[in-house]
């Protein structure tokens, strides 16, 4: 049973086509990478799932629900947690308030409190500074905060736009370790956008390559990166046989 099914969606910004006839399916507990150069439509794909941009055509099903035309808050409440590009921390709120926002959709407040402790045990730095405003955190700390916040909702699927961007390699390792652990223990499904395929190769899982708004390659991440096919597709050599 698939958790997320995207069928043939296209997204336009005005006259510009950002995404054209994209289809993909994610099973529960899967790790799925979306790679591709700048402007390939990676972020647009995530925004379309999150309900922030409306697709011009096509359907999206998440958790057995047709989420086309649903509001972002409805989709979040179905168990979709989004970490958009650019680390949107609420700078005037404290770190703990930022985290608590993540549990807005949960009725079980005790579970929410336990979740807070879990997040703090994963990112102890956040606990040490819990009453400081989030605006003072460094880039890497903000990235941990937004990922922690997205996990507070105990989502079925977490979509992260460029978790590695601007982070030290050591911190990237930590972030991935946390995500993979949650995948293995809770069956969390990971949908990760990365500009490079390096992480996908290290982690394993399925991968698609987007270029010019279209899915040009799809398959097992480790298989795809073996030959020159990925590089060719990434830079578009294939068009000039």
């Amino acid at each position, binding site marked *: 049973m698939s958790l997320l099914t995207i069928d043939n969606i296209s997204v336009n910004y005005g006259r510009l086509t950002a995404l054209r006839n994209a289809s993909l399916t994610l099973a529960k507990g899967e790790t799925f990478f979306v790679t591709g150069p700048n402007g390939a439509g990676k972020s647009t794909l995530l925004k379309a799932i999150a309900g922030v941009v409306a697709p011009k055509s096509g359907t999206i099903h998440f958790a057995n629900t047709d989420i086309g035309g649903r509001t972002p808050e409805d989709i979040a409440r179905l168990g979709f947690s989004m970490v958009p590009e650019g680390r949107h921390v609420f700078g005037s709120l404290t770190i703990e308030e930022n985290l608590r926002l993540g549990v807005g959709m949960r009725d079980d407040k005790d579970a929410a409190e336990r979740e807070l402790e879990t997040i703090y045990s994963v990112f102890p730095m956040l606990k040490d500074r819990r009453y400081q405003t989030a605006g003072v955190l460094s880039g890497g700390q903000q990235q941990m905060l937004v990922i922690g916040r997205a996990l507070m*909702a105990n989502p079925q699927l977490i979509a992260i736009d460029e978790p590695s961007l601007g982070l030290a390699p050591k911190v990237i390792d930590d972030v991935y370790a946390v995500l993979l652990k949650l995948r293995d223990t809770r069956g969390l499904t990971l949908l990760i956008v990365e500009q490079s395929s390096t992480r996908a190769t290290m982690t394993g899982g399925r991968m698609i390559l987007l270029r010019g708004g279209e899915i040009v390659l799809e398959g097992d991440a480790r298989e795809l990166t073996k030959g020159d096919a990925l590089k060719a597709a990434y830079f578009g050599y294939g068009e000039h046989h």
Partner: protein
Amino acid sequence: MTALLQILFDALSLGSLYALGAIGIALIFGVMRLVNFAHGDYISFCVFALLWPSIDAAAIVFAGQLPAYLLIPIILATGACLSMLSEILVFRRFRNANPATMMIASFALGFVIKYTLLMLFSSRPKSIDLWSELALPVEILDARIPLLQVITIIITVLILAALVAFLKRTRFGLEMRAAAENFTMARMLGVRANAVILLAFAISGMLAASIGLILVTQTGTVDIQMGSSVMLVAFIATVIGGLGSLPGAVVAGFLIGGISVLMQVILPLDVRPFRDAFVYGAVIVVLIWRPNGLFAPRSAKQRV
């Protein structure tokens, strides 16, 4: 000393009105990037809710006769309902329009409310006796201060304290602060946009109603133009405070109140009629010094 105390109370009570108005505007701007020019007309509407519709010169007091424990909640509810209705019927349709369109819509709504009142009550100001005993002075350190001024200041402090408690201590308050900073991100975390915005409108409407009640008690009259003058200054206060910043709105409200009263005292007698020119002159100086206001929030950028 006594004169100083009198000036202080004048400044604080005038500043209270401006601060309450400014916060009502800043709340809505925070969650919707809407500068609601109909806010002043909410004030007038609440004031006229005290009367029975008639175009006679004499006011037919209606809700105004009720005892305070009934009258205050009814007028507050009137403000909240009017404000929420304007969100549901008008502003919700413009939510994805650009801010200028929303602002023009708010002007239009203001005119609709104003002319509805005009049709029902005529344009003549009417006198009404609401809690006039509060105009009696009390002695504080030898200065004779109208009781109403003291009450106005106390009520404003209580309202501000309640608002801070709401924003800092409740789930809805947390969501409202988050929504004011980054609405799209808040929604992606499950914050219900319609509920938060509707609540902001309700609070804003109740603030308008409180201003209306204070104004009527102070002046003993009911007038269609009543809200507009406070609203203008309150709007300027939100700009000086930094659009969207609630503490900024309060501080700037009191600041303008203080400057107005101070000008009234220190300006030579012949110049006093031009007091407002000096007040707004000071406003211009502040804006040249800090174009984004005194407390510009980080998130003052346009919403995408």
